[in-house]
């Protein structure tokens, strides 16, 4: 082969690569965040800007915004990492007991050993017991629990399992709009058909079964819908679905023979009066055997959110309900391909599902820390909604749960045109300008999906209260300037 020819084309080009990969987008870490990181570099290099720091309100990372870890968790994990600390008096006995138990479950008594692909057995047992307690006694089998690398790993694995068929029989997966873009990214890569169902913005992002029916009927004309994904509490929308809604969804899934995927990572993040987290599994079982013995369900949880906020550990689990044994065997095979989830994350999950109990030495500190974190989040949720709603042209639904606000912004026609001329989504144009002028990094609504002609942004409620107030007032000022500029 001639030297010239060898130099001419690469093996891996945008034309020869897997075309599905090219369709993948993930706004949460996308172009606006890349620009934010660039700006941070520029600030470090001394470039003059109208602000002195970039505030990353784009990602649901509580520790990044100053939230403190739960002391007990970190004590146990420190001892698991360096067991010499087990003889250190600074650590309480209950923490030591937990550490010893976890280490017993590890190969060679080390968190550095691979675990079984499905996860450390004693941790799965503890998860099952937690689920039983949470769901008022509904039985949970540890064998149906899979520990995962964050919830994302479990979600993508299930989607892989679900997606099959060609052409008109290609698998369709129903997902809420707005949605967390991991779903759209995974579906794009798998070449599955994304079937959108719109949440009702006028009614606090609630889910109407009539909309589910519409979406499904439409989808059946061109694909084979097999699954329904629901995020509760919602991301980015923050709604906490009512029990009635959950029952309706289950009934719908049963009737239409859809596999239910319930993303419940924000299950402890419920703030609004009158709202309560109802797990899909619990409601399913309370609906009686007609449903509880037939509806196929996977529920997902994580150590990244709630009151723990331990994103960096990549801890998570999924529980599968009523899964066909042959399919389950395939699932077990599939998870073994990635070896095992990080063991520190598995250990952390063990503590999350098995926290200090009344009477134990660490209990009162644990409860105090947990309460403080959750009530602070609730306060910031309320504050965010309140302040954003004072801005003409910004309308924010109550942040009932999770960690985000997803307000609607009304953009002047001139701004929309300018954005379109630049080939940018109008809310991306808006958010980019916000970033350049204030250093605040948000994610445009177009990254999550929204009704045509509407624009939103997602902002986390995570910055500490003082900073959050400053942030919100800057957003307010920016918005008013923007409207003036483009009117």
């Amino acid at each position, binding site marked *: 082969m001639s030297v010239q020819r060898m130099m001419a084309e690469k093996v891996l080009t945008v034309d020869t690569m897997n075309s599905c990969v090219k369709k993948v987008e993930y706004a949460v*870490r996308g172009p606006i965040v890349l620009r934010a990181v660039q700006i941070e570099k520029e600030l470090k290099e001394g470039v003059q800007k109208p602000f002195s720091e970039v505030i990353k309100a784009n990602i649901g990372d509580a520790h990044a915004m100053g939230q403190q*870890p739960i002391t007990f968790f970190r004590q146990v994990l420190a001892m698991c990492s360096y067991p010499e600390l087990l003889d250190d008096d600074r650590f309480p006995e209950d923490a030591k007991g937990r550490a010893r138990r976890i280490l017993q479950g590890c190969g060679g008594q080390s968190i550095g050993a*691979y675990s079984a692909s499905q996860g450390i057995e004693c941790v799965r047992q503890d998860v099952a017991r937690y689920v039983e307690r949470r769901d008022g006694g509904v039985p949970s089998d540890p064998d149906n629990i899979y520990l995962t690398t964050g919830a994302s790993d479990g979600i993508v694995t299930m989607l892989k399992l679900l997606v099959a068929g060609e052409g008109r029989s290609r698998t369709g997966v129903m997902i809420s709009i707005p949605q967390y873009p991991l779903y759209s990214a995974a579906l794009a890569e798998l070449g599955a058909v994304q079937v959108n169902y719109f949440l009702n913005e006028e009614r606090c992002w609630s889910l109407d079964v009539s909309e589910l029916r519409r979406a499904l009927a439409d989808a059946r004309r061109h694909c084979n819908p097999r699954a329904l994904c629901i995020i509760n509490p919602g991301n980015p929308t923050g709604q906490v679905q009512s029990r009635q809604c959950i029952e309706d969804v289950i009934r719908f899934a049963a009737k239409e023979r859809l596999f239910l995927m319930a993303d419940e990572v924000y299950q402890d993040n419920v703030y609004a009066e009158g709202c309560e987290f109802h797990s899909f599994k619990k409601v399913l079982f309370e609906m009686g055997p007609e449903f509880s013995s037939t509806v196929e369900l996977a529920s997902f949880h994580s150590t990244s959110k709630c009151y723990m906020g331990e994103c960096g550990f990549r801890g998570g689990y999924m529980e599968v309900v009523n899964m066909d044994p042959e399919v389950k065997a395939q699932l077990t095979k599939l998870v073994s391909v990635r070896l095992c989830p990080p063991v520190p994350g598995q250990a952390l999950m063990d503590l999350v599902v098995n926290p200090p109990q009344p009477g134990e030495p660490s209990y009162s500190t644990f409860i105090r820390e947990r309460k403080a974190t959750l009530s602070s989040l609730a306060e910031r949720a309320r504050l965010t909604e309140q302040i954003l709603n004072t801005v003409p042209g910004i309308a924010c639904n109550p942040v009932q749960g999770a960690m985000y606000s997803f307000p609607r912004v009304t953009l002047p026609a001139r701004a929309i045109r300018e954005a379109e001329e630049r080939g940018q989504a109008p809310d991306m144009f808006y958010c980019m300008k916000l970033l350049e002028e204030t250093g605040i990094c948000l994610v445009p609504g177009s990254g999550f999906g929204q009704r045509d002609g509407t624009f939103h942004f997602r902002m986390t409620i995570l910055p500490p209260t003082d900073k959050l107030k400053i942030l919100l007032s800057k957003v307010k000022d920016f918005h008013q300037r923007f409207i003036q500029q483009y009117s």
Partner: protein
Amino acid sequence: MSVLRAISPDLSRIRLVDQDCLSKRAAQIREALLQGLERPFKHLIDISLGDAHRGGLQPITFVRQVISACLYPSLLDSGRLPTDVKSRARNLLKQCEGESVGSYTATCGLPKIQHSLSEFISRRDRGVPSSPENIFITSGSQQALMLVLRLFVHGKGSLQTGIMTPVPSSPLFNMALSSLGGAVVPYHLCEEEGWTLRLDEMRRALATARRHCNPMGLYVINPGNPVGQVQSQKSIEDVIRFAAEEKLFLLADEVYQDSVHDPTAEFVSYKRVLHEMGPPYSNTVELASFNSASKGFMGECGLRGGYVEFVNLDSAVMGHIYTLFSTEACTAVMGQIALDIMANPPRSGDASYTAFFEEVQNRRNTLNNNAKRVQETLNSLDGMSCQPIRGGIYAFPQLHLPARAVAKAEEAGVAPDLLYCMLLLEEMGLCVGPGSEHLQRKDTHHLRLCIATPEDTLQEVLERLSTFHLHFMRLFSG
């Protein structure tokens, strides 16, 4: 009938590792022993997996001290930890958002650690430049391999993407490739020559494969897994030239680079050889090199820290890789910390240096001694032969089984080496891996033993194995 019954055919095609049934049985036996049930042995030894800690080797103290201080920064105020541990931990925490290891990091890892890795690579490669933005920190090398495979694999029938992979193979790699719908294009390593890569065999494999798929990549493992060969510089050059001529993307799995036992062998990275070959190879051949904190002196498999370095990739493609990888958030921070220490260990003069150096030396000596001892012992047994274990952490001896043993296995519907392993487990409480799960030349049988274990454990392993082997051969001989 379940909604999910009609699952993707790609998934059904993944061959479940035989290992699984052995692991399950080993777990049962371990449980039974705990319950006090009588067995012909007091405790179970499991050296079937490439897991140093499970095999009984201890973690490196410095690594765990740094990690514990990062997890619980109050330890930084105690007199408990050496000064260099504290300063490393403080430094790492400063890199983390909110100074917490509970925060997400940048997609490709903490920039400081990417930087440490690039310097590590450059030092290793005698100054060949390495750029941090070509380094993606991943959840073990397995996640990196899968990330790269996802870029390639598409198409069905004759357009199905194929990747050349060595036989004996890494079952995990083959599983990953199959699960993505790719074709495994096997090329046999030459056992008689000490498991070398032979170009004639690679050409044969490629030509055959082109009739039914579209081979786009060539996967090499150096040092080898499970076979333990260490490629010479010339061998690497030949492979690079072959990849360039045949337009194959090179995937170089170098996770065992730290484990070379043969004093006459040397690990040389694909990247360095590529660079030294000069243009046009050095600036055109596309390469992904993989490394991990799971192997080497650390053996921190459970922390899931690995990385891939990309060389000569198209920049538009790199953009897509980044976007794809960003959907997985980031690698677990503990794994990233382990990599930092791997790349940038304590230096002479640091408080922990002496102890650290001693632990690492002991680890290396253990592996070297084990490699020697295993080879000697197994080669002395009739019906077993073991090629030189030049590197890596496994022994992969060949079993020369009597015809009756093979027949018995066929009757039972299992691979002969799996039958051997099952009986070994039941009778001697020793769990090793069967060669069958690595694909092997037809009618050959092998065992896989992990040699990353304390010397006295290995001694016990060899005693049990020798005893069993003699008994087995006698039982099945004509």
